[in-house]
């Protein structure tokens, strides 16, 4: 193999980091101490997961290892790569090491590739930088590498440009470049965060293949405890720039000894558990690295904090097993009594909705969507536009929501779920089909009636920063719906205060601007705005996906509590299947503008009948190492087809694992006939010619 540096035997340490400290000196502001004493060893052939929320210092520490931090950062400690000290090396010397012995895969695969060179050239460049080989040899090696990471028709595709690749394919290219020189260490910084679950499963598979090929040690940086559960051998949890717990995956997941780790584990909804009980939220938000609290940085959020925690910061000390260590004054106590997340954190009680006690057919419809169609014309030409095609964003979607229930609408990006939601919110006649909100058909509404109906249908958007006007104080943002719908002047401000209290904020926050709030608080403001007019249906567009893990649980609990207290119905659009399982009563799975499976959430998650649902569910990582290791993933081939040119017959047949297993004759219906939704169980319908329930989680 070209450029091989000779494989390091598995088990020998390749990367040793000790007491790494990174500080960004502030000029007028206090210094930001991004990393405060990080030590770890990575052995060849090992996967070390570094888990933490945004601002915990996990990415900064990996950039420090690569020597990629800006010149203003002050880095101390030691980073040894195979015995060679990297800190303090000149950039020129580091360039000899980077990409050859240590390489990196970034989160955003689009910005990590140069748009003006072909993919093959970029991979070949990675080869040529460190090896004296001919152009032809490098190109041949590039094709070989692209083939290795699973890019079909590698020789042809190597001549394509990055924009012709999908996100998942680009990330494969990044991995190909990372392994081009057979490195000893591969650092992956959130490599799958920007990708859909089915693509994430593919990429994780590729990473494992890459590791087998190179025998490298992998440093996997992520905020998702599920991703590392199945992949990593050891896990290191970071908080406020320090490691707070480190150990084997089993130790950390089954016997966490630091309350923060416990909180993280308790706060994630799980796709494999039918959950009606509330999540365990960690109160508060991660501290600012420029103004850390004294003592243990976690003490303001820790339910177990004692006086000692306020004054002295605990060191990382061994607890329990030989390789298990935690930085907590109370880890001994936790270990002795074998406490779990539920023992440490108070679990909030959330009563069941009154409306849900009635059987489903007896409850009135809140939203009824029948055969909704939304096509966008594909125009071409500069002066005279002519239609060259049709993007079938939503193509015949039907579902209903009854009072007091939550329908989760799930699917990968590009499946049409956001278009569906926006079509409903427009409250106008759709291109085809019917939208009936609270018994009123939207096609027959006058302008006035439509405005009046808006009181009852409200929306919460994904990005809490983008959905609040930065130029308005929160009080005015909340007052807007009230003023618009003619609330008497003297009642506006009392109602604003009431709303703030309802979502767990304080009335004096009314005169602050959105940017003075944390992400979770902003999302609470967004929810308060949606509640202002006492609506009956709230449409939630990925309301928690932009939030940190520990904040997410609080917002999910709030949504559940509000639903019960105010007898709301939710249309919950998300790509995160675990959250949907937790919060939804029913779920609809979308693929290429169609609903392929719909039904009761436990029914669909427990025994999905459509092969797409099965693949989707099997791709969701579970934060349970044993389960994760034992799981068999149904990997989908390729990417989502273009909605401008959907496949004939069943739209899923191009990627369908069940279709692939059929013989010629049995395939015919899939190729020719568009399947409709057929009942599978009492409240479960699937659109597949060969629907067959299968347990996947």
């Amino acid at each position: 193999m070209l450029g091989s540096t000779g494989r390091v035997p598995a088990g020998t340490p390749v990367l040793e980091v000790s007491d790494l400290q990174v500080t960004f000196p502030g000029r007028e502001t206090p210094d930001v101490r991004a990393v405060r004493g990080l030590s770890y060893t990575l052995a060849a052939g090992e996967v070390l997961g570094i888990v933490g929320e945004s601002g915990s210092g996990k990415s900064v520490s990996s950039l420090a290892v690569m020597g990629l931090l800006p010149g203003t950062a002050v880095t101390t400690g030691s980073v040894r790569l195979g015995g060679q000290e990297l800190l303090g090396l000149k950039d020129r010397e580091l360039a000899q090491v980077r990409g050859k012995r240590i390489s990196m895969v970034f989160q955003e695969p689009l910005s990590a590739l140069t748009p003006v060179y072909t993919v093959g050239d970029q991979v070949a460049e990675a080869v040529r930088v460190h090896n004296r080989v001919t152009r032809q040899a490098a190109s041949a090696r590039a094709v070989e590498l692209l083939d290795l990471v699973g890019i079909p028709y590698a020789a042809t595709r190597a001549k394509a440009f990055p924009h012709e690749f999908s996100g998942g394919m680009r990330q494969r290219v990044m991995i190909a470049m990372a392994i081009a020189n057979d490195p000893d260490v591969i650092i992956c910084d959130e490599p799958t965060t920007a990708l859909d679950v089915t693509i994430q499963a593919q990429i994780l598979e590729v990473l494992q293949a890459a590791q087998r090929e190179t025998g490298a040690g992998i440093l996997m940086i992520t905020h998702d405890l599920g991703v590392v559960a199945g992949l990593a051998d050891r896990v290191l949890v970071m908080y406020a720039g320090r490691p707070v717990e480190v150990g084997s995956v089993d130790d950390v997941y089954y016997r966490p000894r630091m309350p923060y780790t416990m909180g993280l584990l308790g706060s994630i909804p799980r796709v494999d558990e039918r959950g009606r009980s509330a999540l365990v939220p960690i109160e508060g938000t991660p501290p600012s690295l420029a103004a850390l609290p004294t003592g243990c940085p976690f003490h303001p959020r820790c339910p177990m904090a004692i006086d000692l925690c306020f004054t002295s910061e605990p060191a990382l000390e061994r607890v329990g097993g030989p390789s298990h260590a935690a930085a907590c004054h109370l880890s001994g106590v936790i270990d002795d009594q074998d406490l779990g997340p539920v023992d440490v954190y108070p679990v909030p009680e959330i009563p069941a909705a009154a409306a849900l006690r009635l059987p489903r057919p007896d409850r009135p419809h809140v939203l009824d969507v029948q055969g909704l169609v939304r096509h966008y014309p594909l125009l071409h030409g500069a002066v005279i536009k002519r239609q060259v095609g049709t993007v079938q964003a939503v193509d015949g979607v039907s579902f209903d929501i009854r009072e007091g229930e939550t329908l989760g609408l799930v699917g990968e990006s590009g499946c049409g779920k956001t278009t569906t939601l926006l079509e409903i919110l427009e409250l106008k006649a759709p291109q085809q089909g019917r939208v009936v909100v609270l018994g009123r058909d939207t096609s027959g509404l006058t302008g006035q009636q439509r405005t009046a109906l808006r009181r009852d249908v409200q929306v919460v958007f994904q990005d809490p920063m983008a959905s609040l006007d930065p130029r308005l104080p929160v009080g005015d943002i909340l007052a807007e719906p009230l003023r618009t719908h003619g609330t008497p002047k003297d009642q506006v401000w009392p109602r604003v205060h009431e709303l703030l209290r309802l979502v767990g904020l304080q009335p004096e926050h009314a005169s602050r601007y959105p940017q003075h709030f944390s992400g979770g608080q902003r999302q609470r403001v967004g929810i308060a705005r949606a509640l202002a007019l006492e609506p009956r249906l709230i449409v939630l567009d990925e309301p928690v996906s932009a939030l940190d893990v520990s904040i997410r649980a609080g917002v999910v609990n709030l949504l559940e509590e509000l639903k019960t207290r105010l007898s709301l119905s939710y249309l919950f659009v998300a790509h995160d299947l675990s959250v949907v399982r937790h919060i939804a009563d029913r779920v609809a799975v979308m693929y290429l503008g169609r609903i392929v499976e719909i039904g009761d959430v436990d029914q669909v998650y427990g025994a999905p009948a459509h092969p797409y649902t099965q693949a989707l569910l099997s791709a969701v990582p579970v934060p349970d190492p044993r389960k994760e290791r034992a799981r068999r993933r149904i990997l989908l081939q390729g990417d989502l087809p273009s909605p401008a040119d959907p496949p004939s017959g069943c739209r899923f047949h191009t990627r369908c694992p069940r279709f692939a297993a059929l013989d010629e004759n049995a395939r015919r219906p899939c190729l020719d006939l568009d399947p409709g939704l057929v009942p599978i169980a009492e409240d479960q319908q699937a659109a597949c010619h060969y629907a067959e329930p299968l347990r996947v989680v």
Partner: protein
Amino acid sequence: MSVPGDGLVEIVGTGGALPGEPPPPDETRAVSHGRLVLARFTRHRLAMVGLAVLVLLFVVAFLGPYVAPWSYTKKDFTAFLQPPSSQHWFGTTQIGADVFALTLRGMQKSLIIGLLVAVISTGLAALVGTFAGYYGGWRDKVLMWGVDLLLVLPSFLIIAILSPAFRSGSWLIFVFLLSAFLWMVTGRIVRGMTLSLREREYVLAARYIGVPSHRIILRHILPNISSLLIIDATINVSAAIISETSLSFFGFGIQPPDVSLGTLIADGTSSAFTFAWLFLFPAGVLVLIVLAVNLVGDGLRDALDPNSVHK
């Protein structure tokens, strides 16, 4: 704890505030947006200085003639081209006119022309730009077609052709003519910004609440492009004063014996090095006006933008 699992409240209470934010008011008197903006503006010291200078300039320009010993039409035939003295504070011109009186008269015209043109042209740009950008469709096409047409037409020629028709009328018509040819480029920029703002989620949220379009433009779109508009308006003040000069120079606009700062500066330029007072005083006043307007603009921009950290 009102909501389970909520401890988020603390962070805003302790560390969330920016330095210089007012302390949270008590619950009964919630402070609305308008008052916050006003409070920030009045706290902006330089803006207050600029505002004071502007007011002072107005007072001097309009009340000054009553105290000044000479009027702008009167000539002192005993003093031609005299440097500043106790008799003629700013000196005299070639024909014995008092430069101080002329400058005051010029200020009256130029202050009004500059400020009015700036406000009208920026206002027009904001109106047309946001309207076209927000509504889109045929309205956008028609408006942008009009903008492009105005951009292509030689404005100077149009004003030259039209001005005889208005010669008898008030010089205020001239203000409208000037502003009518200053707004197009900004209008196009505003439209572009509106196009991207229209897709923002907070605008969508307002639409789905049922807020009427004109209120969305007023409350959500205009404030978010206010920085651009304010900068544009401050630049337009000097642009208007200067372009008035060039038009007046060719015989349109302000005609003798009436004067404006522009005509004074144009007349004084040739003797800037020999008889400096002819040029320096009107030019100094122009600089003062532009500076004051800029300070006020900066203050306004900072006041409208809660993110800007003013030191």
